[in-house]
């Protein structure tokens, strides 16, 4: 990685950490946006704890989606699950036409306000990209490689864990990254259903007509998303470089 890009990333990370731990330092920048002496920096809770809650729910939901989606992806690509493959692909296609907000909104009346509907929405919607990429990754493994593995006497389990999954890993990671980014956004909207997270800052700003809140909430979420996206992307490039695949120029 080139020095300037490393510098950029480091600077962005430091800025983000500084802002969520000591936001008052930045009050001067947001003051011009306030009217009638409204506070310039979010004052209804600690940005740090909101960030941690936000990350926690995204992490837990992604973990749950990853486990289930990986399991399902593996199942439908085994001989015993092949029957479900065509349908599961159409379902993923159909599922992706559901906006995450709709999933969130429909979950509220079923399970009440708070973390639960947000978790459900993140979990369900997060399944799709991971499942889709697991399928793609597993089906892209070259039949030749699999034939060689079988010919050397690897049993189905060894083939899965020693050959198929390692080879599908970059694509699966890309799915997880997509899922995390969608979840970060949906979790922000989760604040409308009273899940604790960074969306609170934006919503509070919208409700009290305080543009400073809206902007700082937006910036923190945006920076967080960009940095996480970037970090996961780096991990992915590492893995694919080892496999000798041209790492994507972008994304």
């Amino acid at each position: 990685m080139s020095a300037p890009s490393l510098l950029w990333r480091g600077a962005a990370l430091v800025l983000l950490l500084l802002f969520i731990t000591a936001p008052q330092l930045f009050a001067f920048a947001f003051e011009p946006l306030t009217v009638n002496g409204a506070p310039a920096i979010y004052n209804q809770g600690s940005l740090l704890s909101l960030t941690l809650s936000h990350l926690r729910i995204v992490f837990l939901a992604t973990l749950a989606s990853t486990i289930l989606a990986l399991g399902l992806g593996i199942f439908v690509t085994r001989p015993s699950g092949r029957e479900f493959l065509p349908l599961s692909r159409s379902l993923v296609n159909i599922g992706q036409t559901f906006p995450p907000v709709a999933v969130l909104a429909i979950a509220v009346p079923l399970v009440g306000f708070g973390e639960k509907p947000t978790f459900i929405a993140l979990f369900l919607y997060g399944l799709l990209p991971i499942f889709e990429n697991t399928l793609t990754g597993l089906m892209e493994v070259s039949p030749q490689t699999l034939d060689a593995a079988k010919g050397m006497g690897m049993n189905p389990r060894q083939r899965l864990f020693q050959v198929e999954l390692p080879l599908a890993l970059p694509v699966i990671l890309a799915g997880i990254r997509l899922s995390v980014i969608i979840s970060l956004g949906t979790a922000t909207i989760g604040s409308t259903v009273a899940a604790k997270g960074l969306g609170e800052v934006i919503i509070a700003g919208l409700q009290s007509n305080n543009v400073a809140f809206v902007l700082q909430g937006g910036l923190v979420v945006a920076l967080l998303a960009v940095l996480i996206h970037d970090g996961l992307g780096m991990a992915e490039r590492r893995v694919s470089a080892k496999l000798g695949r041209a790492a994507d120029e972008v994304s």
Partner: protein
Amino acid sequence: MSSLRSSLSLDRLGSVIAVLIGAALFASPFVIYRANRIVAGEGRMLADALPPSGSVGVMVLALAVAGCAALVRAPLIRLAAASIGLCAIFPAVGWSAGFITPPGNTFARVSPALGFWLLALAFALLAADALTRLRLSPWARLAALAVAAGAVALLLVSGAWNDLSLLKEYAGRADTFWREARQHLWLAFGSMAAACLVGLPLGILGHRVPRLRNAILQVLNVVQTVPSIALFGILIAPLGYLAAHVPLAAALGIRGIGAAPAFIALFLYSLLPVVANTVTGLRQVPAAVIDAARGMGLSARQRLWQVELPLAPPVILTGIRIVLVQNLGLATVAALIGGGGFGTFVFQGIGQTAIDLVLLGAIPTVALSFAAAIILDAIIDLTRRGSP
């Protein structure tokens, strides 16, 4: 003989569907009755939800579909069974609402419950599986969509659903509904059109100038990463400033809060798929073809118009499909910043814990994205065939 046996053996997916149908019929309420629109409701099993003839009829039919799913493999038959099932339960739920609501009571609400949704899910799964296996041609898929849309329209227009809570929510705000619908479509399609106007030339430029390509794609990639509501929020401040200090902007209706930041954000999100797919579409021409074209003395401009562009439409359309589905969904979030659209009902519904109001916003959104995906997939297939 052997082929007969294999066609009658137990289908595993079909068995799952049959179990779903069983759970829906015997273990879940078909509809929920509530004394008014926000109190907790009580479930009604199918047997109590319809007059005896009706509930027995629906039950027998659903069981027949279950049997068909488990035992018959022929996709056409399964599709027919699923369609019959759907054609039975959708009117039935409306009928049930009329049957349960005490005459003259305008507060009581009846909504579909778990049992109905499970049945709908089971039949839809069966239909989706059959349709997947049938590998319909693009025109046939469009026709299937039209038939489905027609059937829903018929149910709505005929008044068969008028007693359902969802339609009562609608009846109370029919004007707003259509206004928000227009706003939703304007946000989604308007921003898409703007993105095409800007993104296509940008893509062509990126194709011609590789250095620019990477820069453009990297910036757009970062934009795409920013969650929607955060981007809305970031845009509010500068737009508010613009509105306050540039009279022309204010005159054009640009304000910090409202449709403007939503429209701009959707436009920005749309750029990446349009630009990236334009570049990919132009680049997919095999190197040998480009080499041959150069060998024949075609200039870069001639290659673009005569070789690269004619081959690009399917890939560019794929980008537009992504944009459209994405925008139709994201436009829901615009309501949070006063940008209108179907999200208005969704967020109002969340605020009032009125699920039917949520559904009034969510169902049209999902239906629109779904239809857009099917239509664009069909168009993409058709353009692929046109240029093999």
